[in-house]
Every structure is written in C-alpha cells, then in structure tokens.
C-alpha cells in the first residue's frame, strides 16, 4: 500500500499523467467530501477540488518524505477551502464569548446523526460557524491553530464553536420533531 503510494508519488514528481490520474482517483472522493463540508454548493466544491489538486501537483516537490503524504494533501485541501471562503465572503466572526459561554451543551445531542443530515445542517449554518466547526471537530485542529488559520482570537474560535454546536443541536432537534409530527 505504502510502496504503491511511493511509486505514484515518484512518478507524479516526474509529471507522469497516468500517475497524476491514479493519485486523483485514489484521493478525490475523500477530498471532495471535505470540499462539500466547507462549501455551500457543489459547483464551489468542485472548483476547490480542482484548485486543490492543481496545487498538490504543482507543489509536490515541496513534500518531504518524512511526514504523512495524505495529511500533507489534506492540509492543502483545507487551506484551499479557507482561501475560497475568504474570497467569496466575510466569515462574520464576532466575539460573543459571554453569550456563548452561557449556553449549555448537550453531549449526546448529535451522537446518532447521519452524514447526509450533518451536511444538510451545515448548509444552514453561517459560514463562520461552519468553518470553525469543520476545523475543530472534524479536522481536529486546536483552537490556537484555528485562530491562526482564520486570523481571529482563540476566544472567538471557542465562542464560534459553542454557538455552532448549539445551532446545530437546535436545527437537528427541530428537524426530528417535524419528522415525528409528520409521521
């Protein structure tokens, strides 16, 4: 498995089109999934996917074999998404620490959510909430790293996350209640 990736990688460095396509076919579903979580529509997600792969292929010489290749590519994909978000819209990140800290979290509220539902809920959230939620909960970045990436304070990152989770829980409950009523 690793040797196969190394083989593809070395051929991609020589700009072998077949190897580039093989790398795309292997990782594009995973990266398209990431793009769909950050972007609000499929067209934007496709644009970011194209941009991400273009950047991966053109920066391949910068990858040192020491770390994880998949991790390195994922970082490029996430950064491409963040760049697109900055280009398209203002993140609307407000410092609402007090308001956020007064909210209580329900630890079990989203433990049975399906991915399609998650995507639906994320589409309904403001860009800032969605971005912080993606970076912290799904990508596993720390608040310090999220703050650095988005150019905000650590407290803003924390408050945005709390508000994002709260909004998500509310939307999820609302949907389930309406489903129960209709059934």
């Amino acid at each position, binding site marked *: 498995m690793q040797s196969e990736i190394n083989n593809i990688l070395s051929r991609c460095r020589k*700009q072998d*089109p077949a190897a*580039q*396509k093989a790398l*795309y076919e292997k990782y*594009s*579903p*995973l*990266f*398209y*999934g990431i793009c*769909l*979580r950050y972007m609000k529509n*499929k067209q934007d997600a*496709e644009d970011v*996917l*194209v941009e991400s*792969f*273009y950047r991966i*292929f*053109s920066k391949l010489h910068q990858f040192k074999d020491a770390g994880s290749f998949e991790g390195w590519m994922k970082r490029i994909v996430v950064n491409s998404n963040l760049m697109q978000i900055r280009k398209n819209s203002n993140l609307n990140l407000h410092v609402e620490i007090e308001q956020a800290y007064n909210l209580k*979290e329900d*630890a*079990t*509220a*989203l*433990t*049975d*959510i*399906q*991915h399609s539902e*998650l995507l639906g809920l994320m589409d309904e959230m403001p860009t800032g909430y969605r971005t912080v939620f993606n970076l912290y*909960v*799904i990508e*596993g970045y720390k608040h310090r790293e999220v703050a650095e990436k988005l150019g905000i304070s650590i407290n803003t990152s924390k408050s945005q996350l709390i508000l994002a*989770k709260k909004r998500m829980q509310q939307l999820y409950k609302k949907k389930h209640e309406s489903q129960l009523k209709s059934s």
Partner: protein
Amino acid sequence: MSDSNDHIRSISEDFKPTPPPMAWNRIEKRLSNVKTKSKKKKYNLIRFWFSIAASLMVIITCTYIIYQESNSTQTYGVEYVAEWEDLDIQKDYFYSIENARMINNVSKVSYQN
C-alpha cells in the same frame, strides 16, 4: 461533547462521494496549460542565452580579426620593408622579372590545358 465530536469525525472520515466527472478534465487542462507555459519559458530562456552567446562570439571574432589585422600590418611594415630594402631584385631568382614572366607563361599554359 466529545461523544458527538467523535461520532461526527468518524462519519465524516467515511464520507467519500464521487466527484463530478468533469473535475479531472479541468485539472488535466490546467496542468497542460502550465506545461506549455513552462516549455515556452524554457525555450525563451534558451533563446535568450543563445543570442547572448552568439553576440559574444561575434564580438570576440571581430575583436580578434581587427587585432590580427592591425598586428599583421605592423609586422609587415617593420619586417618586410626591411627585407625588401635588402633584396637585390636583379640577382634574386624569384623576384627577377624574367623568371616572373616565365612562371606566368607556364601557369597560363597549364591552366589552358
């Protein structure tokens, strides 16, 4: 909230939708555009250095020829004039007018044949 975080992370990692079929064509097109541009850049760079090398060669050759010309003129002026001054034209075989005429006739005959 770590329970739901873990759940959300795990379902997200498993989410691998099929990308749109045109995406690869767009990537391929962008990559080929870059290749063409870089080839053009490379070609222009080669052409630039080649023209500089050619210009240098012309300059060096011209300088060498001019130097040689001026140098040989001087040498001729100093050495040959001295030789010509010491030369007894009447006695010398090669420079005698008769011999010169004879050589000239012989060569004309040989060319005609």
